[in-house]
């Protein structure tokens, strides 16, 4: 176990690509709390969150060939995958009309499509930057933070946010763009 603990995320993913179940277990031990935290923030309910987390690892196992080993951006891939899955469940339970959930749908809407050029992130590095992210988020205006949360954790699109806040879609669009732009700027300054 000590040996596998020293494996990098990239080494673990390579082993998973060879269907090494111990490597998947290792990935679970490393990422489950972080992904669970995100999923629970989205769906709130504990049991549903656990169900989704479990499904996320099944997806990783089944769709590992969809992971881009050239860019190797494991952290972002896993977080985006978990978010996509949680938002999908949230939308389906909320009665949103969505296509049937099948393999094709999963590949198209749940599996992340990350950029071809990438600066990879590591979980440890991310956890060390927790305070900086908190500061960057708190530096946004309340309105910016609110639309960002509605979009990121609430899975709402522009129209849904506009309806909820009773403001024009164009305003939502610009608020989101400014919020994400500011967040990027604040985080870069904090580096």
């Amino acid at each position, binding site marked *: *176990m000590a040996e596998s603990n020293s494996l990098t995320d990239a080494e673990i993913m390579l082993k998973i690509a060879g*269907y*090494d*179940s*111990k490597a*998947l*277990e290792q990935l*679970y031990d490393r990422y*489950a*709390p*972080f992904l*669970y*935290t*995100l999923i*629970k*923030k989205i769906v709130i309910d504990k049991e549903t969150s*656990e169900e989704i*987390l*479990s499904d996320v*690892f*099944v997806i990783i*196992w*089944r769709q590992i*060939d969809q992971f881009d080993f050239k860019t190797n*951006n494991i*952290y*972002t891939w896993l*977080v*985006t995958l978990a*978010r*996509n899955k949680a*938002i999908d469940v949230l939308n389906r339970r909320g009665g949103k009309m969505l296509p049937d959930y099948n393999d094709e749908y999963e590949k198209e809407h749940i599996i*992340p499509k*990350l*950029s*071809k*050029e*990438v*600066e990879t*992130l590591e979980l440890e590095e*991310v956890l060390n*930057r*927790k305070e900086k*992210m*908190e500061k960057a*988020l708190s530096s946004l205006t309340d309105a910016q933070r609110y639309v*960002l949360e509605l*979009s*990121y954790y609430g899975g*709402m*699109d*522009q*129209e849904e*946010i506009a309806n909820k806040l009773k403001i024009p879609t164009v305003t939502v*669009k610009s608020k*989101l*763009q400014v919020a*994400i732009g500011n*967040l*990027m700027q604040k985080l870069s300054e904090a580096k």
Partner: protein
Amino acid sequence: MDKKKCLELIKLEVLGCLNETDTESLKIMKEKNDDFPWMELSDYQNLVALIPSALEMKYPASELKDKTAMKLYNIRDEIKAKIDAKKALEIPSLPVEEQLESEEKFVIEEKVEVEEKVFAEAEEGFHINTDEPLTPGKDESFRIVSNFKEKNESKNLTSETHGNTDVSVSKTAPEKDVIEKITRDYINTQMESEIDLLNQSIKKNKILSFIFFLITLILIGALYFIK
């Protein structure tokens, strides 16, 4: 102008907030624009993935690992098919006659290889069972999956020994034999260790009784001499 438009759409795309029209525009930009800002896309994808790092960490139930292992076990056939397809792709193309012969060989060799692997993994699994303490819900479940048998099989076999004949046998003969062997070994190992524990506690009790007997004798002797 194009880059500015791209960046605006990228900011919304990473949040999953694009409407259908914008999604289509961005798709076209990615496909046709040689100067598409891939690095900026990556920066924004990483940025939104960092947002949950500000949350207070929560932990899933420890049993969830077992449940996940069970789900993985249930899709083993699909995974096996994927492994087979992968293997088939790795085989270099041969003339048709040679290929037919090699296909037969491949099937036999693969069967032997899989069976050997199962035994090897099973032994490894039992090594863990006997030498390391079992922690429910921790570490063990995924190993059980890798040994491609699960608690279900043990349960089936246990109920078989209790006279219940309703055991699902949908597996091939060699696989079933292996599963039975492994489960029997597992039960034996568990029983042996329990018998050992019982024997040890009996020994301890005997020694203690003997010591108490001696102390009583000494006390009686001492009382007799005092009187």
